[in-house]
């Protein structure tokens, strides 16, 4: 718990992931402050699912998220750009085959 200038602290931050109906993946919705996991779940429910947007919720302490660094963007992701053989359009189907 950090302490502000007036001595009143803030609860830890949690990242919230919601899953929409229909087998969708969990998606980052935002964050909430909460003193512990149970309250984090409750707060996430009240803040991010008010309009029935979710069938499942994850809350993760923000500090537990390991992120790639912006400087990594090139080395991390560019190598994926020159491998066209990973995309179906790379492969030709014989003339006349309409449905594949």
């Amino acid at each position: 718990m950090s302490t502000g200038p007036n001595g009143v602290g803030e609860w830890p931050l949690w990242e919230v992931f919601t899953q929409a109906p229909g087998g969708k993946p969990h998606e980052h919705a935002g964050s909430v402050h909460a003193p512990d996991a149970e309250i984090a779940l409750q707060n996430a429910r009240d803040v991010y699912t008010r309009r029935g947007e979710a069938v499942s919720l994850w809350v993760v302490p923000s500090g537990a998220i390991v992120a790639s660094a912006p400087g990594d963007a090139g080395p991390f992701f560019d190598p994926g750009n020159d491998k066209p053989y990973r995309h179906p359009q790379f492969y030709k189907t014989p003339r006349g085959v309409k449905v594949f």
Partner: protein
Amino acid sequence: MATEAKPAAPTEDPVKLAEFEARCDRGETIEPKDWMPEKYRRQLTRMMSQHAHSEVVGMLPEGNWITRAPNLRRKMCLIAKVQDEGGHGLYIYCGTETLGTDRAELIDQYLYGTAKYSSIFNYPTLTWADIGVIGWLVDGAAIVNQTMLAHASYGPYARAMIRICKEENFHKRQGYELCATLARGTPAQKAMVQDAVNRWWWPSLMMFGPHDTNSPHSADLLRWKVKQKSNDDLRQRFVNLTVPQAQAIGLTLPDPDLKLDQATGDWKFGEIDWSEFNAVIAGNGPMNRERIAARRKAHEEGAWVREAAAAYAAKHQPAAGQAA
């Protein structure tokens, strides 16, 4: 704001700065860990936290009527709306925190420091009709502004705005519906809603801020694509949208100079009373003291709750915030 009292930002690395500005020009999204000029970080923290404070203080004028809503449907609409404002404040605070300032500190800056919130919330809600007019005009103005901010260069701000814009549409519609109902109601109801429009029209126009020629932060924010349109452009857009809506439900807007410019299609309007705007910004509006007092009271009376929950977490889950 405390950060603005510090000496001027250190000179930025010109190469990094040029690269950053090129990214903004290309319309790229800036993310929390990306390099950004100190001034961008400071301006955004100021602007976003001001926006978040406004959402939270904005709960008070409307919350004032929750206990008096005239039927159960309206009561639920109003609770849901005021609750949304709290949610919106929360989304924007979380976005602001990604710039490196803790929410507790941001809250301290407006409760006990000099951070500002939107001047509109320093006006009182005097009748039930104010609830409709706030939804229609105040939220209507906010939507014009927020629709632009949904394209802001800073990712967390833009994403919060997209979520907020989706939710705010209900606010404006419920407000307009409420006004329309009163406007075709009894003579007393009609008089009530016209009076509310008369009181809220000019403060709503002031929500877009000073003229472009007189707006200290606008140039940087426009250059860095935080804002994409100027205060005056947005204000004009709001007036153009609102005049026909007022006409459709038989309400008049309190401006004798309001007239359609056939050439441009714009509704020309009279000059805003900037002395009133400046007085409210300076803390001397009708409700500035009461709003801050109410927020301080809630914050201070809630301290024992926040402390207790933290103490419980420390006792029972020593690693709270680290592991669930």
